[in-house]
């Protein structure tokens, strides 16, 4: 059973150009999958299709082997949580407490149970101290943590991050990355992260690259990210380590490892001591 399976998915806003053009991919259970691509490649459209915010043109979307249709939209949305890019535009409640409650109210949770759930998930994202704060008093990173708490409170199996850190400062970014990593490792949550952050991609289990509406690469970061020329041709950037390895290659130093910083450093130190 795969959390997400997409077959020959097509979508177009204007019935002329396909923003998503015959896309097929699988996200495996418990994996940390990253989806990257240039601006306008169709990544965010995929996310909206997966949770049924947009209606597909053709093809099929299977969530836990269940096909996404109008009829079971509600069931599927309980399985997938999504965090969007702009922290301000997804904070619905007047306070942190009310915002976490919003999803619970929608799912008709008994109000008597809500306080415990809210306290529990606020603690999970380390926002217990801010329960009665208004969003204007929170940083971008804190707002995104609240968004994650709101999603977690609905106990989804899959978490989609749609450029959730791209509007945050470095501190907020690392807060969110650490939190998502913990959710992945400790709870075994399936993560699909749409991102521009090459370092995040390097650490992921699986990477999908989109280019002009199509998935053009699908595999392990260690296989895909090491081709500098290809990454550039896909309007992306290669990791610094890969670029450095290539610069060294031009100088006659060929390394086995070109992605993992630590191993590269170890290899270089070994080369140096041999001389």
């Amino acid at each position, binding site marked *: 059973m795969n959390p997400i399976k997409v077959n020959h998915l097509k979508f177009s806003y204007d019935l002329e150009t396909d923003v998503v053009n015959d896309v097929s991919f699988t996200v495996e259970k418990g994996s940390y999958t990253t989806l990257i691509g240039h601006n306008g490649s169709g990544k965010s459209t995929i996310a909206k299709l997966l949770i049924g*915010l947009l209606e597909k043109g053709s093809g099929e979307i299977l969530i836990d082997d269940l096909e996404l249709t109008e009829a079971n939209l509600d069931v599927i*949305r*309980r399985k997938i949580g999504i965090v969007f890019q702009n922290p301000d535009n*997804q904070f619905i409640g007047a306070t942190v407490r009310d915002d976490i409650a919003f999803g619970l109210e929608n799912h008709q949770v008994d109000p008597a149970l*809500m306080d415990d759930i809210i306290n529990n998930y606020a603690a999970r994202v380390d926002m217990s101290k801010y329960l009665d704060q208004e969003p*204007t008093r929170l940083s971008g990173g804190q707002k995104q943590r609240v968004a994650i708490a709101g999603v977690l409170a609905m106990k989804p199996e899959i978490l989609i991050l749609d450029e959730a850190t791209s509007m945050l400062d470095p501190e907020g970014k690392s807060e969110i990355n650490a939190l998502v990593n913990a959710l992945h490792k400790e709870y075994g949550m399936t993560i699909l992260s749409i991102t521009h952050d090459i370092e995040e991609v390097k650490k992921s289990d699986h990477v999908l690259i989109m280019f002009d509406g199509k998935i053009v690469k699908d595999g392990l970061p260690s296989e895909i990210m090491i081709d500098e020329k290809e990454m550039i041709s896909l309007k992306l950037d290669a990791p610094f380590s890969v670029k450095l390895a290539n610069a060294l290659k031009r100088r006659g130093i060929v390394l086995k490892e070109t992605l993992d910083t630590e191993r590269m450093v170890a290899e270089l130190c070994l080369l140096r001591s041999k001389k």
Partner: protein
Amino acid sequence: MNNIALGRYIPLNTFTHKLDPRFKILGMLILMVSVFFPSGFIGYGVIAAFVFIALLFTKISLKMILKSMKPMIFMLSFLFVINSLVIRTGYVLFNIYGFTLYSDAVFQTLYIMVRLTLMIIITTLLTVSTKPMDLTLGIEDLLSPFKRIGLPSHEIAMMISIALRFIPTLIDETNRIMKAQASRGVDLKEGSFKEKIMAILSLIVPLFVSSFQRAEELADAMEARGYVVAQHRTRYKQLKPTYRDTVMMGGVLSLLGVIIWLSL
């Protein structure tokens, strides 16, 4: 910016703050009604005494209220001038240079002044002691009987609360766009009529565009979290009346009784 202080929620923990917002709104409405009864100056005295006690219970200083009423002085003096020229009933108070001031002109102005002051204080009492969100909840509940005739009370409350939630965000946004356009040479104070129109457009168009985008993203976020219009939801915040509400309603209703009796 300092004038916004009038009527803004002040987080305290007083008797009034702890009242159930539904009863607080009802209480306010009853007080308003009593102000409109022609109960004479004795009646207004009674209401004023009641309101004064309410102020004490809410820990609002009279000074703050008086300060916030300053802008009204101009309007009231204007009203007084008009009244003294127009109203020619009652007894003559004095006569200088052919101008006669009648007693009713003074009384009429005083009446209006007292009514206005009382009404402002009464609304301030409510808004200062109730979080905007709780006000919305109160309004939602009070409107819920009208659901039967098709009034979407929950949706109305949701709309109000989202509007409240986004006011600070939109103020920030407006400030940013104003500064950005000022950097492009926009000057709202100078320039020809046509330039002023352009200057205003350069603020309003971007504000609309970004608000629509926000609205769209917000709608997506709400939907993704399981919100469906007109579908039943539970409510996290439950309103529970306490003995305080009984005391307050008892007080307000007896006041209304006294006022009606005085007006007979």
